[in-house]
């Protein structure tokens, strides 16, 4: 069938969404809650504007009027559908809904784990959302108002850091539902109702799963992040007495490069790791596939002996997406770093200067 986008005709198939047709044809439509496996039309950022009705006749129930906003991610195409992807209404809708989300987020970026790597922040920057439209600034409130506001906000926040792999903080959650929809073990639910909604585990149990990390991967903000003692990691990397070894898992380099898209031009992951303070890089190859633990163990034993380094001064980092290994840390494996944590380290280090290599 044919549909019309921004006055041009495009081919489309039954069952496709407007968003899919736009993507295929390089038409940019922003989204926050949308992902490959999750597109429920919740954030309202992907709205497009209906220009004229495309069908009537037997579908008499529909009374769609001009100027109506539709979410492109979950609206199916039909013959004759005519929409535009930019307009005053669309910009207004995006601005106000982002501001509503920002009301809970304003002022937190500087100390946030996902600073510069956050999808909400990116949208806020693009649409110039900075004001404290819906929530008074600290200085504007009386003490009791401020107390009430803090108390109200905190009463709905769930923080969980008891499990070894995933840090959860609903303070940052934008209720996109990507984690609920991607979890293969169905550990998360959309709990309670209205403004009290919390994306979390039933009865706020401590998360107990196989820690595949898919939820952390899809979270657009800092609601679900990798669990780690970040300060200690940075301390070890900066400590000249510590010999930090990075064991790079298969396939992680591309993932790190993808994470670093907006942070640095440098593409060479080994160079980046050296800049961060790693003294030795070991790269896994296909033949190492089932021998991870063996290879990691060798560092503080055979390798230490060979290089005459006191194993107590060695710090091993498994750089991998397999965050379930964080639960398997032992005397041979000190840390597991995901691609996201590497990105954080790079972000905080400052500019990685191309060409400079330590040691």
């Amino acid at each position, binding site marked *: 069938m044919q549909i019309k986008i921004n006055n041009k005709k495009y081919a489309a198939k039954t069952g496709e969404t407007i968003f899919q047709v736009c993507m295929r044809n390089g038409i940019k439509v922003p989204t926050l809650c949308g992902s490959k496996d999750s597109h429920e039309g919740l954030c309202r950022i992907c709205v497009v504007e209906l220009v004229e009705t495309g069908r009537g006749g037997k579908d008499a129930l529909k009374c769609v009027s001009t100027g109506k906003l539709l979410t492109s991610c979950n609206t199916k195409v039909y013959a004759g559908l005519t929409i535009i992807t930019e307009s005053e209404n669309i910009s207004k809708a995006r601005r106000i809904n982002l501001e509503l989300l920002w009301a809970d987020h304003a002022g937190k970026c500087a100390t946030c784990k996902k600073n510069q790597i956050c999808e909400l922040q990116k949208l806020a920057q693009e649409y110039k959302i900075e004001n404290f439209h819906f929530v008074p600034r600290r200085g504007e409130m009386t003490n009791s108002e401020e107390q009430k506001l803090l108390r109200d906000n905190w009463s709905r926040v769930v923080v969980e850091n008891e499990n070894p792999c995933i840090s959860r903080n609903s303070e940052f959650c934008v209720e996109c539902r990507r984690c609920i929809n991607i979890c293969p*073990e169905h550990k998360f*639910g*959309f*709990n309670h109702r209205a403004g009290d909604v919390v994306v979390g585990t039933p009865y706020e149990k401590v998360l107990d799963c196989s820690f595949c990390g898919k939820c952390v991967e899809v979270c657009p903000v800092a609601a679900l992040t990798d669990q780690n003692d970040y300060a200690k990691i940075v301390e070890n990397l900066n400590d000249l007495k510590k010999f930090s070894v990075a064991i790079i898992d298969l396939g992680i380099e591309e993932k790190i490069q993808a994470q670093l898209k907006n942070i640095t031009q440098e593409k060479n992951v080994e160079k980046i790791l050296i800049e961060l303070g790693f003294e030795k890089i070991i790269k896994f190859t296909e033949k190492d596939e089932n021998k991870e633990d063996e290879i990691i163990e060798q560092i503080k034993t055979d390798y230490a002996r060979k290089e005459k380094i006191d194993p107590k001064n060695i710090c091993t980092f498994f750089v991998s997406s397999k965050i379930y290994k964080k639960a398997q840390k032992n005397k041979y494996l000190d840390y597991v770093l995901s691609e996201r944590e590497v990105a954080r380290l790079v972000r905080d280090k400052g500019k990685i200067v191309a060409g400079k290599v330590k040691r």
Partner: protein
Amino acid sequence: MQKSGTIEKILLEFDPEAKNLLLALKKINASFGYISEADAGKVADYFELPLAKVYETASFYDLIETKKTANLEIKVCSGGDCVLGNSAEIIREIENYFRIKAGDEFHPKVRLEKISCLGRCAEGPIVVVNGKAYEKVTKSSIYEILDKYAK
């Protein structure tokens, strides 16, 4: 609160199909006052649903509790008609009586909530105390009602 047998007995009244989840939850809530984590687990097993699904459904609805209710649960209807009948004053009186605020969970034994219209507007203002509805409540008659429960 009538107990219609164990939770297993209640579950057996329903075919183990996902569509019966809400009906089963309502029945369990009616018998036990709330859906405990343990009971939710049994429901999840019976219907072969994730526990997260059982909880997200149960926690959505007003008439299903997911935690033990307070000793004294007071709900004041805040529909337009009851508001015109001065339900706001009644709420203030209750707040002063127990030194609590509507919606708070700080008092160990008493919980005061504003609820949505119950459809009994001609008999309002309506105040529900531990499930029992009182009609045509005034800011003075509320004291008699509270005194009955406060001991």
